[in-house]
């Protein structure tokens, strides 16, 4: 270990990658939380979630010249959510209650269309995405990686997650979503309009994807395949964290982010694969994930 004030380059490298992993993990978590919300209430794995993320980023990019970064950060996720509400209303709704196969194929097709659609509109090349200058400067000379933007991203994700749990815990919509997740039939009998509930819930999930999109492109750049590359880790986050558990999903996202961050230091070519190894290990010990409930024995 290092002496006073001087941090060895190895330690710094590890710290850098842990921190980086935490940020990546925060993205995964944000995206996975949205996926989880939809999966838990409606039983639909939304393959198009990555597509919504990309669209969030592209909307922000398009609007930025007019309303700036902050405006984009507020408006783009909302517009993405509106698109989500529409897609749910027109398409997703039709496959509820049918074999889960069909919802998978439907959102699969949508994912293709979104990726290709963004490529058609905005082009295949990576687009520059400007974040405010003062956010990019490092905060410390020693820990060069602590840029304001990175801290800012973690902050926004933290606020979004707290907001989500507040909505679920305190608002009427959130309480209904949680109740519906446990027993949709009873909620329906009690007079809650399940169609509206699922619609709003889908919108909420897609909002999180849109938000993740705006944040992600500030870090990773903007290209049509960004959604496809982020969706699989989000699946892993859900599986590792525990099926049906939102806190589990959050935990899962952060864990796999950090794990791949650390792996980058020691075995860079396994950076992507390590999270799947982790998933295998978790499934071996707890088939329903870390915080998932055992459904049956």
């Amino acid at each position, binding site marked *: 270990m290092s002496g006073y004030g001087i941090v060895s380059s190895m330690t710094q490298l590890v710290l850098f990658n842990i921190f980086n992993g935490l940020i990546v993990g925060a993205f995964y978590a944000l995206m996975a939380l949205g996926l989880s919300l939809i999966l838990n209430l409606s039983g639909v794995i939304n393959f198009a979630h990555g597509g919504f993320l990309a669209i969030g980023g592209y909307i922000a990019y398009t609007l930025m010249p007019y309303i700036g970064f902050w405006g984009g950060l507020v408006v783009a996720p909302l517009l993405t959510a509106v698109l989500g509400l529409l897609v749910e209303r027109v398409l997703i709704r039709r496959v509820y209650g049918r074999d889960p196969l069909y919802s*998978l194929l439907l959102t699969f097709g949508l994912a293709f269309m979104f990726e290709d659609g963004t490529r058609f509109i905005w082009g295949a090349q990576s687009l520059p995405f400007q974040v405010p200058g003062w956010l990019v400067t490092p905060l410390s000379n020693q820990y060069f990686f602590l840029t304001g933007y990175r801290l800012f991203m973690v902050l926004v994700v933290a606020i979004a997650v707290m907001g989500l749990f507040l909505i679920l815990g305190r608002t009427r919509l959130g309480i209904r979503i949680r109740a519906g997740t446990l027993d949709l039939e009873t909620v329906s009998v009690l007079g809650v309009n399940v169609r509206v509930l699922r619609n709003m819930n889908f919108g909420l999930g897609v909002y999180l994807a849109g938000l993740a999109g705006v944040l992600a492109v500030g870090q990773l750049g903007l290209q049509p395949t960004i959604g496809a590359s982020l969706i699989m880790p989000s699946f892993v986050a859900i599986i590792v964290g525990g099926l049906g558990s939102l806190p589990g999903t959050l935990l899962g996202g952060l864990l796999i982010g950090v794990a791949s961050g650390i792996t980058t230091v020691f075995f860079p070519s396994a950076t992507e694969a390590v999270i799947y190894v982790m998933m295998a290990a978790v499934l071996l010990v707890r088939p329903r994930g870390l915080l998932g409930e055992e459904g049956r024995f």
Partner: protein
Amino acid sequence: MGASELNKQAPNIFVWLLLLGMPFWLPAIGGYTELGTRAVVLGLAAMSLNFLLGYTGVLSFGHAAYFGLGAYGVGMTIRYLMPSTIVGILVGTLVGTLAAAIIGPLIIRLRGVYFAMVTIAFGQVFFFIAFRWNSVTGGDDGLSGWTRLPLDFGFASIDIQHNARAFYYFVLVVFALSVGAMAWLLRSPFGRTLIAIRENEQRARFLGIPVDQHIWISWVISCCFVSVAGALYALLNNFIDPRALYWSQSGDFVIMAVLGGMRSFWGPLIGAAIFVVLQDYLSSQTENWMSFVGLFFVLVVLFFPRGVLGVIRRKVTS
């Protein structure tokens, strides 16, 4: 053979005649032999998936991984180990089957969307291995520098390397053996336990069927034949790249099975044929074929969920 037995066999005879005559009638209607070979290879993949999906009722979205393992298995064997097409296919199949057998215990306790999610996620491991392990797999550029080789029996040799028609018939023989084995299994007591699981898992369990064990076996069988298909696919192209094990390829297999009809034995083959022709046509017509394929998924789900054979069967019975 009685008249009713002949009636039952009629669709099978029809399919085999079509397949046997493919290199002759397909060019006549504007196709080419390789297109037919591709349809048969992907048809085998979709039928193998359907062993699990349609006959066991288990929703796998990760079959591309084992397809890809079969493909890399044959390519790497021919390139690095032994210049033999047959040995390559055997190695590819073995690798894919072993991987499935090892992953099986981790996933068989899950059902429905969760099973789909975990299988698709596991598939990504193999994608990243193929993608990252440049020195051996060729990474993103794919594994080239090898070709399929003539079949050499010592006393005679068949040139499947240069003769597209000979290769088609070689593929058809492997297809027939695989499909025959699956049909035979489905008509056995073991096959009936799988159908029992599909129909009513709880009932099956309380009839003394250890459901998880049977699903595991069905999964391994299904992945075994999908890796055979993957091996043939690599031989067809004399090339393999990581896209063959990417998760979107798994979705293609599922849509083929659904499009043709999951509840019928030949359905996935028909679905694969339609998909192959459509993809061939779209990719020659437009840059944005991916959008159309996506749209195609959506339309099938909304308007054609029973598939071609499902619809035909329904018309016949009503």
